[in-house]
């Protein structure tokens, strides 16, 4: 039972650290708790729900995983976010049969959606979305994430940026990344639509603050700047089509040869 007690104490410490925004302490405490958790028989994947304290252990573990996510959100660390969300999700799934649904489950789901959205991982976003039942859709976190995704797909980027400011407090991490994502989207659209663009227009289009930032951004994407005109690189695309043609020709020749050989 000492393990349980220790864990409880460590969890309290973790909560304190989170409240105080003490990320470093939070991280060390979290590491310690995880080691304790694997010693608890009821926590998956040990999954021995027969012990008398199973409920208590599981609740405790859930608390830990939820706080791990919150902590990761605060620290803005991509890797930590990834792993903490994965762990939490697996935990929810594994304990669904023995624990009542967590009150904050859908909030975390919404946060996860938002995280995927701002990272422009649309495919995974939709996979996750499919897993959320109707009741979960009404939770503001989920609803706003879904709304944002729709705008993004429509190309209503101004709406996206405007909405970014009115997100729930836990979502603040996403705001800045969201604008970066939107800018990349615009850039890729512009690249496909125009052969070249005036620098000033590009700056407005991509909502960049200064000409210098624009030039910087152009350099990142490998666009050529001549005077005050940005040339999107079309040569590469042309190459690609030539290559495609060659491939097609090769295939055709190969088929012809194989046909000859058919006995």
């Amino acid at each position, binding site marked *: 039972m000492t393990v349980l007690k220790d864990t409880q104490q460590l969890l309290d410490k973790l909560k304190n650290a989170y409240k105080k925004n003490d990320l470093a302490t939070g991280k060390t405490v979290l590491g310690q708790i995880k*080691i304790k958790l*694997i010693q608890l028989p009821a926590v998956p*994947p040990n*999954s*021995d729900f027969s012990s008398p304290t199973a409920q208590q252990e599981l609740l405790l573990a859930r608390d830990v995983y939820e706080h791990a996510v919150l902590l990761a959100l605060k620290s803005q660390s991509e890797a930590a976010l990834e*792993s903490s969300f994965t*762990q939490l*999700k697996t*935990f929810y799934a594994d304990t669904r049969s023995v624990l009542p649904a967590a009150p904050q489950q859908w909030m975390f789901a919404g946060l996860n959606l938002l995280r995927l959205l701002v990272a422009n991982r649309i495919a995974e976003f939709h996979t996750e979305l499919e897993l959320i039942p109707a009741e979960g859709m009404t939770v503001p976190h989920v609803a706003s994430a879904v709304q944002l995704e729709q705008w993004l797909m429509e190309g209503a980027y101004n709406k996206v940026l405007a909405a970014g400011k009115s997100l729930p407090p836990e979502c603040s991490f996403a705001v800045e990344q969201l604008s970066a994502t939107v800018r990349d989207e615009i850039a890729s659209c512009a690249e496909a639509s125009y052969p070249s663009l005036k620098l000033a227009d590009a700056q407005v289009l991509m909502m960049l603050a200064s000409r210098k930032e624009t030039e910087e951004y152009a350099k990142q994407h490998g666009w050529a700047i001549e005077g005050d005109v940005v040339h999107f690189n079309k040569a590469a695309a042309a190459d690609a089509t030539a290559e495609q043609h060659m491939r097609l020709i090769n295939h055709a020749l190969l088929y012809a040869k194989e046909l000859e050989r*058919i006995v």
Partner: protein
Amino acid sequence: MAAAAVMPSSAAGLLTLLDDENDELKHYALVHLNKVVHEFWFQIASYIGSVEALYEDDEFKDRELAALIASKVFYHLGELDSALTYALGAGTHFNVDEQSEYVQTLIARCLDQYFELRVRQVEGKEAVDIDPRLVAVVERMLDRCCAHGQFEQAVGVALEGRRLDRLQALVAAAPDQPALLGYALRVCQRLVVNKDFRQQVLRLLIRLYEECEQPDYVVICQCLMFLDDAPEVAKILNKLLSSGREDDVLLAYQIAFDLVDNELQSFIIKVQEQLPKLPEPPAAEPPAAAAPAAAADGAADAADAMDTDAAAPAAAAADANGGPAPAAAAAVPEMAPEMVEKLSKLRDILSGKTPIGLNLEFLYHNNKADLQILKNIKGAVDARVSVAHSATILANALMHTGTSIDTFLRENLEWLSRATNWAKFSATAGLGVIHRGQLQQGKALMAPYLPRDGHTGSPYSEGGALYALGLITANHGAGTQPFLTESLRASGNPIIQHGACLGLGLAALGTNDEEVFEDLKNVLYTDDAVAGEAAGIAMGLLCCGSGSDKAQEMLAYAHDTQHEKIIRGLAMGLALISYGIEEAADTLVEQMAREQDPILRYGAMYVIGLAYRGTGNNAAVQKLLHYAVSDVADDVRRAAVLCLGFVLMGAPEQCPKIVALLAESFNPHVRYGAAMAVGLACAGTGLREAVSLLEAMLGDGTDFVRQGACIALALVLAQQPEAVVEPFRKRLTKSITDKHEEVMARMGSIMAAGILDAGGRNASVALRSGSGYFRRTSVVGLAVFTGYWYWYPLSYFLSLSLAPTAVIGLDSQLRAPKLELVCNARPSLFAYPPPVTTETSKEVAKVEKAVLSTTAKARERQKKKDAEKQKEEAAGKAAGMDVDEPAKPPAAAADATAAAAAAGDSSSGPKEGDGAAAAGGAAGDDKAADAAGKDKEKEKEPASFTVTAPCRVVPHQVKHMALPAGSRWVPVKRGAPLSGILVLRDLTPGEPVEYASSGTTGGPAAPGAAAAAGAGAAGQQQQQQEPEAAPPAPFEFAP
């Protein structure tokens, strides 16, 4: 922990732990991942980098566990090589004893890799480093097999891994050594592809066999034969003979029979040389001496030639009979007379005299060939169509292979005379097929046709006769070789040279005789297309299987000459030289396959086919398949597909599958090749897949494909139960009688009819000897036979591959006692097919009634004419017919008329009567059996029946055969199948023995038995076999 069985929904949570800094967490994650890896490998796969990193981290204590997980993931991903690498890295975590699919697969992979490396190390002589961990796993496997008593698997592993040391240890540890050794031997013969290693294994096996308490000399001698170790075999035979125990002597006889059965002439000759020499001169000389003597006589006095021929062998043979024992005894007083007797018996077996004599006897007495079938064919084909006509003669020859029965030819002399030029050559050669095995009298039989000084006959019949002589003495030609050489040197006519070359090649098959080779080369260098072709083939026959460097000489000449025929002959010759040498032929194949000339590429295919005959070698199959689809020349493609049949002879059941696609090719040549490949590979098996494949091809749109399908199907269905064959027979009849059928297809049907009833329905294509190894003569015969595509006379080579399917029991005196055998199967299953019913023959007769009645008269006239002719000849030149009657004193010329007339009528008369009676009897039985089978259901048909050896036992029947309980006779060879020639031990010696009498021919029974005993009773044999030995009446073809 029962509840722990709750399956987590995902491994994602655990996987995140892998990136944690804490080792304890990582360990925990790995342990749990290992439990769920088979369910969540796809999730782990995305994190495989982390797992691999853990394994590569030398500091990490659970790196082996990480390796195991990585291995399992790679296994699921199908990357077995990576999986294996990691499994080896997992050390003891990788549990060899686990029964999971994962472990089984990886172990198989592991063994494969080990084998590959070992093969490269041992055979490629490469410096290959074998991972010691790999070796450890293999060793663990072997130990486990031993512990579980799975010795056969272990032997397989040891052989594949080229581990002779383990093989030896395994045999030592096995509880049932002989069985395991037998298994190892079988595996070694069938599956070890590399020749060098196979020989090493054989050496080891021989040693192990000899260490057994009761060495199995039969097997040891077989092994020694493959190692070409004649002295050792001779030593064993000698030891057995002189041990004094009756059983050992019998065993020696049996070994000799088995050795002869494998038909390796050169080896047998070496064994004979190595046997104690003392009684040899008188035993071996006379026949050889007699032949030149006769030839000399013939040269001296043409008019008396026939007489002399008839008399000389008889006298010489009498000498030989009486001669050896006393002469030897006189020469070697220290050798006991009984020992001399045994030795001379052994020599007779080895020289082929006894077994061939027994087979002749059997084929003659049990001939069930249905003349009505031939008559029907003859009635249906137009004699002016030479192709069909020749094919009919071939069908007759095949049906009567080795039976010495030439009734059909005698009855149809006029019809026969339509064969002109090369058809005449072939027809004469056909006589050789009919008289196949008449070693002593071969020359006498063919005498009327053989070239003689001062007599200018048709070169076609003379050449054909020389060829026939070769066919008669194929593989046992020591006696006729000098005569053939003489004829070859003497003649300048390319047609005669053609026949002489073929004959010489056959007689000296595989002997590598330098002198003969020089003679053949001289013929080749005359650069005559006809003679050169035969010389090329003959060179191949002569050096068959030697892989000698003469091949390069021949190839060089093939480049020089302009004649396609010569190139083709040489190409076939090169293939024959490469027979069975496997890898050693690879350079030659490379060389020939790159030639510009399609004929040489065609030869290259045959080289592959024969070099890898029956090995099923993958590389060879692939090469052939490649050429079958990519070469530009139809001939090459056809040959490539056809040769697949040779390569796959060892595993007939695979052949239909492999060529199934090719059989549907758009190219008729490929289709023909596919049909023949199936026919060759599945000959005599009656395999269902083969039959259905070929049956579909019988309706092919191209005539020569139908031809191939007919021939192939006949090869496959020969001696199958009549219920299976009957539809095919009907189809053949239809095709033959159908006037609108194209001539090529009809030719195929006629040949097929001959093949189906080969050797009087008592022989079939036997690619393997009784001990399961390939008979070289058979395979070579088939290979040359396929050359009939270009050159019809080559079709007679098929007779080489026919072997009687008999069971013949012999006692210690090498006489055949009546041996009762039980066959545990319904009688109708293995009965001879019923003769063609009178109804069908009437049907045919109805159509041609007018013709028949006139032919009857014509025959009368012909007979008279014949008699007159004979009279003339007998009186004038004292030719031919007297050979028939050596027993009669060469009496007055007046007698000769009567004798000739008698020969014309009566010599065929009783035979026919016999045949009819026998056939009638068989028919009665069959009908009864049939009726039982159909009308009264199966209850009436007994589940087993008794036969009396010598009798026909078809290959499928062998497994049903058993000795009756309390049989007096027991085969001396332990556990041998009841087929072929069996030497028997008499359990109650002293009691009177009832011998299978051969009195049907009217000869006295005792000499008959003595002849069967084959103790050199050539003279008696001649007397006894007098009627069937009779050469056909000297019908001269009127060209």
